[in-house]
């Protein structure tokens, strides 16, 4: 029984982890049809923000929950203004340009902080015990934060005027701009929010994974798979794909080991895409969130 609970918790954490690293990417993709290849570097920058701030004496929670999203959100807005906005409607060029950006970020961070791990910080909160098994309390907290983040995004999209405008723009940009909505501003804010959430995710994971200039690559493969398998709907897509892929990965990893777990995740995604090329929530219907 305790084993079931402990394993279940581990799988749940895997699912939450996928959702957390994918949400920022999913927001930018779902709203703007832009696949941000610098997504991994947004996570990486969030991680660096936390490590640097914590080492400079800033409270860890402030660094993770406020500084990381703020810094990366601002970077996102700058990137959108300087680069992305010239490329709307040119999806392939956007992909390539964001890839260039990704290399640029890796290069800058490596030049400043060196290629190896910056001073790490350890996860706060210690462990909780489930019968004879233990689990990291911080991982439990991350599950909670991921759920809360999902709910927050849902509420913003559903309840606020910003969400309404954003949904309108993403369904019909021309119509929205005819109604006086500044599409350009909506895109800028969306990109900023997507970046901020990526920064938050990167910051939250920094104590668990440590930081490296190239750590983005570790995240993006999984984030891409999750977002593509999920399809265009931001929340429904991310949630369903995270549950499916994270679940398969977790179960396979428990039964056979982490390597097979990743193979299982990849195979599931491939089979899924053959059956549903537009992802679980379908690329055509943008109505669901």
């Amino acid at each position, binding site marked *: 029984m305790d084993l079931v609970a402990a394993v279940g918790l581990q799988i749940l954490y895997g699912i939450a982890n996928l959702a957390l690293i994918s949400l920022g990417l999913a927001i930018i993709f779902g709203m703007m049809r832009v*696949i941000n*290849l610098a997504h991994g570097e947004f996570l990486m920058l969030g991680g660096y923000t936390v490590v640097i701030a914590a080492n400079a004496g800033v409270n860890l929670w402030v660094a993770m929950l406020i500084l990381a999203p703020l810094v990366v959100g601002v970077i996102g807005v700058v990137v959108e203004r300087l*680069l992305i906005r*010239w*490329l709307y409607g040119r*999806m*392939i*060029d956007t*992909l*390539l*340009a964001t*890839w*260039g*950006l*990704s*290399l*640029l*970020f*890796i*290069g*800058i961070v*490596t*030049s400043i902080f060196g290629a190896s791990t910056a001073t790490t910080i350890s996860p706060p909160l210690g462990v909780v015990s489930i019968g004879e098994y233990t689990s990291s309390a911080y991982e439990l907290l991350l599950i909670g934060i991921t759920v809360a983040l999902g709910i927050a995004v849902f509420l913003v999209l559903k309840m606020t005027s910003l969400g309404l405008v954003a949904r309108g723009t993403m369904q019909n940009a021309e119509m929205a701009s005819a109604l006086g909505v500044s599409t350009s501003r909506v895109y800028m804010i969306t990109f900023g929010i997507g970046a901020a959430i990526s920064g938050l995710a990167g910051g939250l994971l920094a104590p668990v994974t440590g930081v490296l*200039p*190239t750590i*983005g*690559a*570790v995240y*993006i*493969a999984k984030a*891409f*798979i999750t977002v*593509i398998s999920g399809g265009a709907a931001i929340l429904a897509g991310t949630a369903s794909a995270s549950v499916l892929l994270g679940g398969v990965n977790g179960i396979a990893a428990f039964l056979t080991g*982490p*390597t097979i777990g*990743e*193979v299982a995740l*990849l195979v599931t995604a*491939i089979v899924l*895409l*053959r*059956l549903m*090329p537009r992802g679980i929530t379908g*690329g055509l219907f943008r109505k669901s969130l």
Partner: protein
Amino acid sequence: MILARDVRGTLAIAAVGVLFMLIAPSVLELFTIINLTTAIALAVLALSLALVWGYGGILCFGQNAFFGIGAYAYTIAAINFGGSSWAILVAILVAVAFAVVIGYVMFYGRVSDVYLAVITLTVSLILYSLIRRTSGPDYKIGKSLLGGFNGITSPPINLPWDPSFVLFPEHVFYVAMGALVVAYLFTSWLTRTHFGRVCVSIRENELRAELLGYDVRLYKLGIFAVGAGVAGLAGVLFCNGVGRVTPDVFNLYNAALTIIWVIVGGRGTLIGPILGAFGLFYLTSALGTQSTVNNNLVLGIILVVFVLGVPKGVIPTLAGWMAARRTRRALRARERRMRLRRARGGGGRNDGAGAGAGPGGGGPAGAGRGAGAPE
């Protein structure tokens, strides 16, 4: 007529390649030759993406996956077989088979360009993280350990009929350069065949190709698989040049590099990406010897600058300039003739008109060739 164009250019380039192959070992130092072998392997990889992306229009962001698979398959097979000849064939076939599986999912699912780019990149990254985990004695294929992030030492190529006669690095250079020339001739031939032209037409307009009765999925799968085979060959050459294969062949940096060669060299040409690979190889090796400017930084800037500023790439842009200059010169020549004619008065009007029509008529034909297949 349609298929016979620009064959001379291709043969000229191949001849330069052969000449280089024959001369280089006697003028260059051994170290340079060994380095060149690696650069040549990368050029073959560039060539494979030039075919798949530049001609097939398939946005493969993970072409290095097939390259890495080729390198691993060669190394593992050569260790197991105790010789390289069959291992080379196995490497190419494994890369092709892998491409067929991935390609089947993507093309028969009709996933869009952007998804395709991300899926192929993801496949490469997943392979990277998978192979990195294979340290220790549990992970082996036949006699060969996979070696995790340390990789495997690759057995050098031997003479086909004598496994005990292992080639020296300078001989491997001949093999690599020869392979590049053959691969170049093969891919240019392929782009001129009916199959190749259909692939180009699919790049131009997928729906029209489909409405003409071509099974777009099959053609895409075909050129994707051929490209993977060429990339697999590149992998074989690469691990021979370097002497070992590590999971790094699958990493994000190499995926980006492959794309950048093609962007810089130019889509729609075969020689452009080959030159792009050589150029960037020497640029990054030069940068590698100093520590102030980071390689990623430079590549990132190159990529952004080219996407925003030179989206067609160097070779097509140069070709465009040259064509424009030719047209301008022709126009000027015509103007001169007209002025001359006017100065001479009405005499010889017929003659002048005939000469004037010459360059004008030549313009569109030349332009047509440029837009069709600059290769």
